[in-house]
């Protein structure tokens, strides 16, 4: 089975229409059926052994009913008409408004929005080939240096078929295929243990491994761990920070991405509320969220409300131009949604989420950015982050960083968090490179739900950030 076949819809449009009507049975103005069928395979190697290959199947429907300001939601793993109608009635009851009567639902014809052409469906690839990748990663990482004492590697693929229908007539489908490989390494030396990590993930099939060298990935992670064995404690206090291309998109994800989500803005829980049209960042910064970015980890054909993904410019030359929107928030403002209504699975309510969020190229030569920095920190790899959108304070971890002394990258630093305030840091970006790259695949967590997201940026400098090290 080399290609994913264009398959029958998961549930027939006739049944969907009846379920949507049941959802509006108590007089609610909006009902929605979200059907998901996800197959996944994962394999883990640790301590030199392939520990376990896992196959998973998650299939079910989430039904949402909106009445006034109230959303009712129910989900079920029973995709029969009976099961769906029961869930729709539960959701309708949950949205609980008077009125009564049946509201006719007329569905449009099914629109398919395949996010990407998958060349090699992971479903059709022998599991032994997937496991073989892990063995190659293990061998390559261990080959880097005798200081490498432990390697763990994970492979995962998933094929997620979704079908969304709502009482406004939307009927759309998508098949999202994602493939992922990750490696973490432990190295040991006189000063204790250090770790290295790298990952590769795209919204494509097994062809990802024709286009990317897994050994290279393993070697990068191993070298990161070995380098850190001689790392000195990171400095403390505020200083210039240079962030390497493709490693610091998480900075924007935290510094302003979450704060531009319309649900948080709507509750005045974002420091970017009421700032439309204002200068919120250095004029060097143009920030885009783009779900159509083929093959990137956050790419989607449709969002989880059935809206086609799109490219949205959020900040143009430093000026705030738009927030990100889902159906409910857009409806409230009487405007169009932006393809940012996403959910973890059929068991979850959709909310405003990012897709692939990135800053486009500036003009500076990346080498000049380092040369121009007398004293500071160069970050080659960032870890995760966290933001308080209301105050704008955010942190992100540096997993591979170096000192910059007199315009040169010098000694490696131990791990730590950096802290800053979103609007202040955005205004403090004083150099932006011309070497844009996307970063590692990420999982963004919000309100207990995780969704795949991508980020990217060219090499850039922030004039001043607080480094959470231990050195004085």
């Amino acid at each position, binding site marked *: 089975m080399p290609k994913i076949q264009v398959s029958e819809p998961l549930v027939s449009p006739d049944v969907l229409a009846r379920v949507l009507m049941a959802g509006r049975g108590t007089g609610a103005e909006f009902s929605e059926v979200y059907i998901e069928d996800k197959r996944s395979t994962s394999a883990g190697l640790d301590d030199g052994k392939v520990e376990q290959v896992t196959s998973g199947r998650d299939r079910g429907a989430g039904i949402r009913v909106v009445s006034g300001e109230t959303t009712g939601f129910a989900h079920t793993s029973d995709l029969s008409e009976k099961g769906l109608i029961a869930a729709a009635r539960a959701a309708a009851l949950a949205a609980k408004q008077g009125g009564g009567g049946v509201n006719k639902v007329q569905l449009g014809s099914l629109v398919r929005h395949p996010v990407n052409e998958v060349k090699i469906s992971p479903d059709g690839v022998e599991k032994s080939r997937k496991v073989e990748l892990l063995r190659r990663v293990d061998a390559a990482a261990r080959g880097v240096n005798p200081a490498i004492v432990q390697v763990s590697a994970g492979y995962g693929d998933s094929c997620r078929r979704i079908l969304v229908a709502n009482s406004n007539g939307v009927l759309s489908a998508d098949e999202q295929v994602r493939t992922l490989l990750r490696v973490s390494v432990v190295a040991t030396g006189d000063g204790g243990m250090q770790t290295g990590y790298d990952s590769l993930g795209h919204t494509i099939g097994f062809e990802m491994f024709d286009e990317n060298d897994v050994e290279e990935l393993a070697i990068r992670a191993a070298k990161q761990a070995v380098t850190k064995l001689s790392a000195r404690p990171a400095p403390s206090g505020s200083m210039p920070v240079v962030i390497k291309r493709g490693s610091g998109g998480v900075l924007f994800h935290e510094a302003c991405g979450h704060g531009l989500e319309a649900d948080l803005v709507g509750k005045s829980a974002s420091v970017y509320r009421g700032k439309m049209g204002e200068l919120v960042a250095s004029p060097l910064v143009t920030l885009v969220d783009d779900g159509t970015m083929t093959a990137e980890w956050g790419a989607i054909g449709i969002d989880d409300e059935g809206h086609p993904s799109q490219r949205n410019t959020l900040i143009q030359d430093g000026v705030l131009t738009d927030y990100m929107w889902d159906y409910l928030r857009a409806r409230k403002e009487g405007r169009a949604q932006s393809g940012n209504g996403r959910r973890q699975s059929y068991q979850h309510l959709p909310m405003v989420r990012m897709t692939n969020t990135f800053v486009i190229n500036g003009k500076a030569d990346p080498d000049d950015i380092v040369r121009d920095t007398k004293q500071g920190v160069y970050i080659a790899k960032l870890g995760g982050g966290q933001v308080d959108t209301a105050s704008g304070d955010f942190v*992100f971890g540096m997993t591979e960083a170096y000192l910059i002394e007199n315009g040169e990258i010098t000694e490696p630093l131990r791990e730590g968090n950096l802290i800053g305030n979103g609007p202040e840091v955005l205004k403090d970006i004083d150099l932006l490179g011309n070497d844009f790259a996307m970063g590692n695949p990420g999982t963004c967590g919000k309100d207990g739900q995780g969704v795949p997201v991508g980020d990217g940026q060219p090499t850039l400098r922030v004039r001043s950030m607080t480094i959470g090290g231990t050195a004085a």
Partner: protein
Amino acid sequence: MSVEVPDLQKLADLVIEQAKTGEQIEAYVARGGETSVRVYEGQLEHFVSAQSEGVGIRIIKDGRTGFAYAGTLEPSAIDEVLAEARDNVQFGTVDEWAGLAEPDGVEQVPQKLWDEELANYPTDKKIQITKELEKLTLAADPRVRAEQSNYEDGWGETAVSTTTGIRESGRGNSCYVSVATLADDGDEALTGFGFSVGDSPKEFDLNKAAREAADRATRLIGATKPASKRVTIVLDPYVTSQFVGILSSALNGENLAKGRSLFADRLNEQVASAKFTLVDDPTNELAYTATDIDGEGLAARRNVLIENGVLKKFVHSSYSARRMSTKSTGNAIRGGFAGGPGVGCLAMQVQPGGKSQAELIASIDDGVLIQDVAGMHSGVNTISGDFSTGASGIVIKNGALAAPIREFTIASTLQKMLLNIVNLGNDIDWLPMRAVGLTLVIDDVMMSGS
């Protein structure tokens, strides 16, 4: 378990009966549901009522392991899962220690895990409580806005059967309310939260949740960024709970076996201040994560991990125990039917000290009360021990709380911080987390700011 779930046990039994010669099979079957209520500005924002179920099957043959799961209990789907798990076995590497748990004769300590009143609690009352919490929060302080007021409950039933003789089933339910607050400070707003847990909603202390949520947001109004310096930090119980929780990874016997514990080779050595005693005790009913069995179906039990600062024990599942030539400590953990068991602490408890938080603060000339931390997942490495998190809190000056501060980090290493524990509070707080909360005083931590 205390209450059996015969129909799920039957499903699990039916799976393991299909074992072929030389196969060990474990079937883990689960079913559960949740209610989620959110209120905003006096209106019901959402009401979620959901049920889910599924099965995970693990097969071990000739030292190789395979696993599969499905989010359904339809008989045909279970057959498919069994076939997939069996197919997956061939791709595993032979591991001489691979195997399922076997009954070890340790008796379960009965727990009250199911509350009948919660199970029958009326929906409209759940909504009413959530509205009430929002109202109380707004009334607690005029400077406070409520971002969301929530009620959540959940119930679960599980059964596990293995060809090695484990047969356990049980059910549990729980509920809590929480409220998130905002207090405006110019263009910015400061956030707070409060919550209350109980066996049933009648045990909620809504006033306390509202008060805490209002205090947390308002006490940081006007906060500034501090200058960098070395300080004594006083961790609020909620922060201590997170700090203690991350130690689970270093005390994990599987991490030890695989060379990933910073406590490797330190057994019976002084790894923490003599004032620090850490116990994992899921048999203590007061703990939010109390349980009677672990993720493999063995009895949960009390384990002393660090006693007066001396490392006494690592926690084990049957697999890590076999590797380390010891016995399972009943610490297999499991996230649900979609994965096999791992290893971890179940309910971590720190032996309290003798003083209240106020008394501890009164004894400090120059320090910081840490109210909240951010980035525990991005700036703390439990293998190297490097510790760095964002923080907010209140300066302690000559034994009294002074100005609020934010946008700074605190950094050290886990190894040093444990040795630098100088005092513990008597203010045990059974938070809805894996580890208990209490006030913890740690010396010589780098505070990084301007």
